[in-house]
């Protein structure tokens, strides 16, 4: 019974999150640029996105005459479902995971590529040169950045020896069946907390996180990698012809995608549902703060902080050029992530044995 209750609450949360994230992004951008942001609708402008969504629902749903009508309709559906399919394998707490399959992280990598397919479908079906250019740029970018992201994930997977996200979470806290070492020298299996997280289990995994984070920014088409929808060059990129509810679906899918990649980062690098508080002698803080409901709180806090970081980066950095983007990926991130994979193997063989 609790399982169904949690499922419904989480689904509701993700739906409301996408709306609130748009509001939060506006508020944060306003704060960074010394403005006030939305203030009129509701207290602190909290109802601004709800108002926007109602506006979009009322708007005329225009399909361009020369567009490929079926694909034009299918694209937002594909993008939206692909992103929400991804949440199926995310563990929210020690007892709650929708689908505990033993290929969890591999499944998530496949989901990301399906989303790109939807973007290409949108771009091509619009029959607009800006939309098409935007979606081709998006593919070039996402296919390239999948490689460093996958290799950074592989560096983590090699230490845990499993693709199941629930087991990866288990091995980063006090519920672990294996022994956990803080940087390979201090056993923290019973202490848990922040010391047992992946990034503190080996020195190179923080770099793996940074590579994954950069690649995930590119996969979400976020600044500094937002050339697929660069306003000053391509009007609005792949969704330029979309109006009304279809545009709303694409827009919300982008924010849901940000949340999904942040969830993956939280699970792989920051302990997932594990508490950041360690057991300190008689203060067994980690024992108190581990459980079904605590787990949900921790993982959502971690994921939302990473979303905040993404928003912060968007309003701080200028956009990369296409060639700079590819140089960064192929000449910096990919060689570096190969070195990390090698280092993971060495660490597993010589330090943890």
């Amino acid at each position, binding site marked *: 019974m609790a399982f169904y209750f949690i499922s419904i609450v989480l689904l509701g949360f993700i739906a409301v999150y996408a709306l609130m994230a748009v509001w939060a992004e506006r508020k944060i951008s306003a704060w960074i640029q010394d403005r006030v942001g939305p203030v009129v609708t509701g207290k602190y402008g909290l109802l601004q996105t709800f108002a926007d969504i109602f506006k979009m629902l009322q708007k005329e749903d225009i399909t361009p005459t*020369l567009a*490929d009508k079926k*694909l034009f309709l299918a694209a937002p559906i594909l993008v939206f479902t692909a992103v929400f399919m991804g949440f199926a394998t995310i563990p929210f707490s020690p007892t709650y995971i929708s689908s505990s*399959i*033993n*290929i969890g992280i*591999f*499944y998530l*990598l*496949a989901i990301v*590529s*399906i989303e*790109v*397919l939807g973007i*290409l*479908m949108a771009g*091509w079906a619009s*029959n607009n040169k800006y939309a*098409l250019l935007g979606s*081709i740029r998006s*593919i*070039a970018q996402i*296919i390239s950045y*999948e490689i460093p992201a996958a290799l950074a994930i592989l560096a983590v997977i090699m230490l845990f020896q499993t*693709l199941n996200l629930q087991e990866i979470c288990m091995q980063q806290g006090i519920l672990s069946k294996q022994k956990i070492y803080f940087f390979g020298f201090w056993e923290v299996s019973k202490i848990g907390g922040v010391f047992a997280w992946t990034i503190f289990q080996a020195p190179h995994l923080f770099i793996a996180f940074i590579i994954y984070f950069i690649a995930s920014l590119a996969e979400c088409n976020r600044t500094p990698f937002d050339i697929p929808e660069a306003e000053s060059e391509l009007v609005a990129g792949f969704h330029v012809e979309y109006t009304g509810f279809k545009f709303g679906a694409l827009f919300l899918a982008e924010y849901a995608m940000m949340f999904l990649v942040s969830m993956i980062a939280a699970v792989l690098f920051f302990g997932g549902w594990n508490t950041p508080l360690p057991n300190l002698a008689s203060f067994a803080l980690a024992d108190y703060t581990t459980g079904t409901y605590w787990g949900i709180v921790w993982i959502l806090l971690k994921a939302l902080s990473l979303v905040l970081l993404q928003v912060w980066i968007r309003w701080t950095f200028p956009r990369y050029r296409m060639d700079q983007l590819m140089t960064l990926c192929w000449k910096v991130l990919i060689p570096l992530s190969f070195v990390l994979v090698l280092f993971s193997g060495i660490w597993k063989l010589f330090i943890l044995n």
Partner: protein
Amino acid sequence: MIKLVFYVFAFLAIAAALYAVSTKQIIRSVFAMFACFFAISGLLVFAKSDFIAIAHLMIYVGGILVVMVFGIMLSQKASLSNEVLQKKSISLHQYLALLACLALFVILIYFFYLYAPNTPIHYVGSDIQIIGIALLTKYLLPFELVSLLLLAAFIFTAMVTRKNKN
């Protein structure tokens, strides 16, 4: 109920495959191909090989995307104008292609009957460990050969594109 889902996937796979070969618009046929692969990976989940199902999806979606970009670059003009290839009659090379496809199909069916296991396959548990160990012990040589072939193709492609630039 499960049988019904199986038949839905099977129908989707065949319908999408037929649409992919019969439509005149290259982009639509590529999207139909994707639908076909999606249905086939659904069928693979039924065959209890979920790793292969996801690998199938991942490899082909990545591959299809590149094919699609080429398709767009080669056929944008043709699809913009309203006259999509109007030719109705079937020429000689299309007959030959049909013949080749039928021959391939017969061979596939023949070998399927020849080598189909008599006993149902049993699911042995977490399959990624088994696949990994099998790939690096029993099937190490084919695995390495395939990687070498891919590397050769990769280097050759880089060489060809560089020559065209000069």
